[in-house]
Each structure stands twice: as structure tokens, then as C-alpha cells.
């Protein structure tokens, strides 16, 4: 695994996709890492960086899908070409890529790591769920994906006979785990550091509280 590196990266561009922003940064010397790994992005004006998984790795760039849910992510969405922020990564454990018949499952901003993952898996089928048509504009990141919009749930689109690789809200991940024990699930937790220092991102794994940034963020469904 490439070792994480912290660098000041320049914003190459920022495009809106429904409520989300696709933030593109000039890569510098930072390795894109494996699909499902994440980066800590300096949030301008905030004390702590924000954890975001890599969405796409265009030549010379790193791209992140940001949902402006709070002041930190809002400050990231407000960045413009030419601005610069510190980026630290790649961090954590990503998806295992030795899967036979992959199906990617994404919900909301949880579609973020799937485009980069799809590329690594040579574009397997994907099913995505969103709460509205506006949110579903992010499906453009995964051409060919089947899309469910609430009240239809993405889990209704899952066909049997696949190994599931999923990222999305917790209820969706629990539903995927129930459908497919052994699914690879990318989880999220509040995180101050991203490298095992703060013990803030504790989640229950195998009956014990463990640090998601060190053990995950991709975990096998029990």
C-alpha cells in the first residue's frame, strides 16, 4: 500500500451534481491509493479536516464528491479553481478487488467511491439509490447504473448471484448485509484524524469498539 502523504494541493475545478460538488484537485505527489481508501481534506476555516473517499482519479487529479451537510463540507464546496488545501492520504483499507461477479450498490453521497471502484473492476453493473431526482444527478458519475428514487429503495434493484460492494447510509448498509453476508461495506464515522490517533471513529466490529479509520472504512458484512 502506498504510504500516506500530506501535501498542499491546488483546486483544478469544482462542478455541481445536484446538491453535491465534485471537487477536483491537482494530484501533486499524492497517490490515489486503492478504491475505498480515503483522504483527509483541510476544510478552510475549520480546525479539523474532513474524511472523503476518492471518487475519481482523472490523469493528474484527485476528485472528491462532497455533500454540504455542515460548515466543513460547505467550505469545501465553496472552493474555486486556484484555491489550495492540504490533503492527507491515502488512508485506511479499501475494497478487495478479487471478486467474481461484482455488483456495486450506492446510496446518496455514498456513491462517492464507486466510480473509481468501477474503473478498477472494469465497469461492473451498479445500482444506485437517491432521495430525489435532483440528488440522482450524481448518477452521471456511473454511466449505465440503474437508479432508484425514493420511495423505491436501491435494495429492490439488487439481483441475486452477485458479490455486493456497497457504500451508503447505515440503514442501506444493514439491509445489504442482510441480503448478502460477506458483502463489502464502506462505512462512515465522525473522524478527527484519519490515521488512528484520535480514537473518535469507534464502531462496533465483531462485538468490540474499533477504530474505523484503521480497520476500515471497508469492512466485510458479518
Amino acid at each position, binding site marked *: 500500500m502506498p*504510504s*500516506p502523504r*500530506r501535501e498542499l494541493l491546488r483546486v483544478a475545478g469544482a462542478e455541481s451534481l445536484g446538491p453535491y460538488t465534485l471537487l477536483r484537485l491537482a494530484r501533486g505527489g499524492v497517490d490515489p491509493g486503492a478504491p475505498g481508501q480515503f483522504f483527509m481534506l*483541510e476544510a478552510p476555516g*475549520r*480546525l*479539523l*479536516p474532513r474524511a472523503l473517499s476518492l471518487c475519481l482519479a482523472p490523469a493528474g487529479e484527485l476528485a472528491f464528491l462532497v455533500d454540504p451537510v455542515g460548515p*466543513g463540507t460547505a467550505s469545501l464546496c465553496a472552493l474555486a479553481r486556484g484555491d489550495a488545501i*492540504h490533503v*492527507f492520504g491515502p488512508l485506511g483499507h479499501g475494497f478487495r478487488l478479487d471478486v467474481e461477479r461484482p455488483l456495486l450498490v450506492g446510496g446518496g453521497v455514498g456513491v462517492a467511491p464507486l466510480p473509481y471502484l468501477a474503473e478498477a473492476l472494469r465497469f461492473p453493473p451498479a445500482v444506485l439509490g437517491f432521495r430525489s431526482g435532483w440528488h440522482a444527478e450524481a448518477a452521471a458519475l456511473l454511466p449505465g447504473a440503474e437508479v432508484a428514487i425514493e420511495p423505491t429503495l436501491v435494495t429492490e434493484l439488487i439481483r441475486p448471484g452477485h458479490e455486493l460492494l456497497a457504500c451508503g447510509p447505515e440503514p442501506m448498509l444493514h439491509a445489504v448485509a442482510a441480503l448478502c453476508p460477506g458483502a463489502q461495506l464502506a462505512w462512515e*464515522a*465522525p*473522524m*478527527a*484524524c484519519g*490515521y*488512528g*490517533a*484520535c*480514537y*473518535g*471513529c*469507534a*464502531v462496533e466490529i465483531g462485538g*468490540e*469498539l474499533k477504530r474505523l479509520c*484503521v480497520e476500515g472504512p471497508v469492512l466485510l458484512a458479518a
Partner: protein
Amino acid sequence: MLLNASGCLDALAAPEVARQLDAFVTKTVTPLPREGNAPPRIAETAHGMLNAIGLANPGRERFLAEQLPRLQELAIPLWVSVGGFCARDYADTCATLEAVDAIELNLSCPNVDEAADSAAAIVAACRAATSLPLFAKLSAAHPDVAAVARSVAAAGADGLSLINTLRGLALDPHTLEPVLARGAGGLSGPSLKPVALATVHACYAATRLPIVGMGGIATAQDVVEFVACGALHVALGTVLFADADAPARIREELAVVPVDDRYGAAHAAEKALELPAKAVA
């Protein structure tokens, strides 16, 4: 010396960060394993953060058997932070520690119930149990922290670690419920610095003991200010979360910081005593 604040770095998970320090301070070790508090455990605030980790640690037995040998292999000077719920807890752990450079007694975690014994009684029990250097980590929340500092000095502490986090509360703006599952947590980061400086100054004036100053240090200028108030060493906490390269960066900054009596200068602390008493009382 440049250290980390206990609980703000895991040298086994990030040895390259620990190697930037002059000594690594472990997360607090308690007699029994502690899983820690339920998540969410952290919250960002204006100019700081709250944590309620709850002294998550594998317990003394597993620490000694599994973690300590691996930490010693890193060949970084090692301080072990010791916690407990009575003087006996602390002393028993101190008695088991060998081949470490110092012990920090965590007498001030805001996220667990207070130890029943006084800080001085805990230090005295530990003094009887070990000849290793003992640093007492005190809370600035005590109404007369200088008096506590004097009492732990009299009980045999070799130094002081100042300060721990201060209890704080953050509410979700929509639900008005606490953000942290435990409710309140410990405040750290830049908002703590003025409190830490005043506490370091007061305790240095009261004891002249070696002090590890900490609380919101993020730049060389912060380091110089802590030394000016009486700190002999400094520790980095919250800044490590945002910048894993902070120790190396601060060392570089110290090389160019525009003051004569820089970090480590012996008489900077003496100068601090010349501050008018009423300014820091």
C-alpha cells in the same frame, strides 16, 4: 522536549509521526480493559473540539504483554500515561513499569468519574511504588490548581503535565441534543491555550517543577509562549489530528522564530515569574 499529549497519537499505528517527537506518551493505561464511550465521541466546536473517548485501552495486562514490547521496539523514548480509580490502581500499574522513560499520572480525565483519592495521595502511593520520573497531569478546572501542584510536589512528583481538556458541551443545532453520546466531553484545541498558559505560569510559580505545557499548541510561537510561562517541555494534541507533520513543522519554525530566549532556554521560565502576579492570579 517535544512530546504528544496522551491520547492524541498511537505510535503503533503511526510510527513515522511518533519519530518526529522527542518522546512518545501512551494513551492512558487503566488496570482493567476499557472499551471507551459509545460513539459519537468527537465534535468540532468553534476554535476547538470535544472528545469523550473514555480512556479506551486494553488494560494493564494486555498493555504490558502486547503493546509495551512493540512500543519499545520503536526505540523512541517512552512515557506511559497511567490512570485508575483509586491510589492503589495507579500505584500497582507504576510498580509493573520498567524500561520506560517516565510515567505521567492522569489525574484529570474529564470523561470518566473522578478518582476517589486526592491527587497528592495518588502521587504519594506511586512514589512509593516506582523510582521512575513521575509527572502529574492536572486539570485547570480545579479552583486552586497551584495548591494542587504544591501538594503533588510535596508528595514526590518530579514534574507536572498541564493541562488536560476542560469539560464542555456541544449541542446539535437542529435537535438541541448533545452531539456526543456521553453528553459532555473534554475541550481541546486553540480555545484552551489561554487557560493552559495561565495554569502553567501559576504552577511554575508555585513549585518550580519541570512542566510539560500543552493546550492548543499549533505553532512555534505557541511553544515560545508556553516556555515563557514556565514550561520546560511542550506537548502537541489536537494539532496532530489536522497535521500529522506538525512536530517536524514546528521544529522548523522554531529555528527561525524571532526571539532570543527560545524554546529550551533555561531563563525564559525565570522571566515568566516577573509577570505581575495579578495578571495571572
